[in-house]
């Protein structure tokens, strides 16, 4: 029996991707938890930015808004949205973490609407917020989402946020800053990256207890396989302890 749940696995797998000393633009929820966990484990010098203006805060508690007081608690600077977005545009932000209602094989995201008619959508979601900006301007975009075929779809109803667009070199041709793009997709089952030429999503690591077929089953498009598919190391005792006791002690996300 597993001693951790889906959300815990996802947050821990995501945290591991963040290099020490790098910069990461994050939102609330799971991405923020991953950044906090990284800081408290292997990446104490991870620099966190929040889009509303918080620059390098000390995160003692999980923010409920990307602009609440916790996002600039003991920060280096409580600045402006422009300050943070400009930092991304200048090329000084390494990572961003996003979510979305739908994702396609090229890592494009939809957080705007479900339906055909933009004037009268079937379901309206919040929209881009800063997601499109972060995915356009930060070097590496990471996405955290539950592996679910209703989310991993053949075709998005609306491309809110750019991934590799139509694959190949279409992203670079669009004018988006050179060298940027989706880097990792982290679900509760696997970690995916993108095949370098076609830019199609491919599985590079499977979490304990899941096979490639399990992942493909919960994906609405055909996934590629990396030449070597790794086994994601299972959550460590100390990772779990820190996540549960220090990052999300009230269980907002991990539900304990």
């Amino acid at each position, binding site marked *: 029996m597993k001693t951790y749940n889906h959300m815990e696995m996802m947050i821990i797998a995501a945290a591991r991707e963040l290099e020490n000393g790098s910069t990461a633009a994050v939102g609330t929820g799971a991405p923020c938890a991953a950044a906090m966990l990284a800081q408290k484990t292997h990446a104490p010098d991870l620099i966190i930015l929040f889009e509303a203006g918080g620059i390098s805060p000390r995160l003692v508690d999980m923010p409920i808004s990307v602009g609440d007081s916790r996002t600039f608690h003991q920060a280096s600077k409580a600045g*402006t*949205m422009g300050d943070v977005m400009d930092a991304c545009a200048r090329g000084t932000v390494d990572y961003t973490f996003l979510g979305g209602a739908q994702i396609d094989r090229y890592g494009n995201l939809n957080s705007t609407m479900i339906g055909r008619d933009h004037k009268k959508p079937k379901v309206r979601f919040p929209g881009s917020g800063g997601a499109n900006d972060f995915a356009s301007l930060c070097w590496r975009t990471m996405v955290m989402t539950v592996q679910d075929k209703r989310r991993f779809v053949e075709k998005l109803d609306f491309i809110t946020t750019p991934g590799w667009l139509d694959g190949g070199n279409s992203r670079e041709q669009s004018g988006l800053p050179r060298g940027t793009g989706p880097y990792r997709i982290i679900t509760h089952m696997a970690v995916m990256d993108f095949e370098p030429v076609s830019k199609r999503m491919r599985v590079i690591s499977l979490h304990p207890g899941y096979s490639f077929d399990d992942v493909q089953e919960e994906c609405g498009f055909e996934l590629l396989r990396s030449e070597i598919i790794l086994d994601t190391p299972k959550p460590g005792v100390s990772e779990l302890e820190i996540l549960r006791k220090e990052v999300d002690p009230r269980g907002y996300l991990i539900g304990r």
Partner: protein
Amino acid sequence: MKAIDQSHGKLFMDPDPDHARKFFRKKNRKKMNKVMDLGQAIETFVLDGEYLAIGGFGSNRTPIAACHEIVRQGRKGMGFLGHTSTHDMQVLSAGEVYDRIDISYGVGLEARGLSRCSRAYLESGKVMVTEWTNYALTARLKAASMGIPFMPARTMLGTDTFKKSAAIQAICPFTNTTLALVPALYPDVAVIHVHEADIYGNARFKGIAVADIELAHASKRLIITTERLIRHDEISRDPSMTQIPFLLVDAVCEVPYGAYPGGMPGEYFSDEDHLTDWLDAEKNDETFNAFIKKEIFGCRNHEDYLNLHGGRERMAALRAEECLLHKEFYREDV
């Protein structure tokens, strides 16, 4: 500069700086006493059919008292700037105050969930929607604040967000970079909530500024709601602290807890229980109508609303919540 790709969203506001200049030339810039009652400020400066912007970010330092007053006075047919608009949008949607929106983030209350009311309103077809991103909207306000017709940006490219915006793609004549040009946005009126302001409108706040400085400069009319009035000599003693100078301001309204049930950095935390009540009430139309009737129309002003939710005692608890989080503000040894 030739457009190489055009979007299909509606451009609601005129970005021409010469037209805006005509307005600003005539705007009263006198250093005069601008203190007035919030009701009077909304009545005078927030007009049916015009374009409204609300400061702050989500539920943080957002002039919710002003949003209630706008709904209470029955404003209709407005344009609205949904620049990460959460509870403020929920309130304004409840009043069906706007019928067109420039949106980057709305409908949601971030980690708290989605507002069924805002969502249904945007799904109803009653609202014209033009899409943007947070940065694009900041850049649009920045362009207006600088008196230029557009700002170049490297965002939105390649996406449907661009297609449903009113931006234009063009090629940089220096570097051949493909750019999204976003048009200047001059809102007719904005409301910004601050910690401190003097009677002339010189205003300052603590914590993140979001896009409020750009917004203050871009807006044709500006209402400041403030936690407290301070003496002008407090401002002039250290003018480096002033974020919004009096020249931009049309009205100053002292509204303690003016961001409630949202939070105010260093002052009080958001009332998460009451925000949950809002989300819960929306689940049923009838419940929600009764809720709005009680919460907005049943109150004469913000003080009534505060009293409805525990008054001084509840506010003290929210102050404690905010200040305990920031205990390092008060103790050196932590």
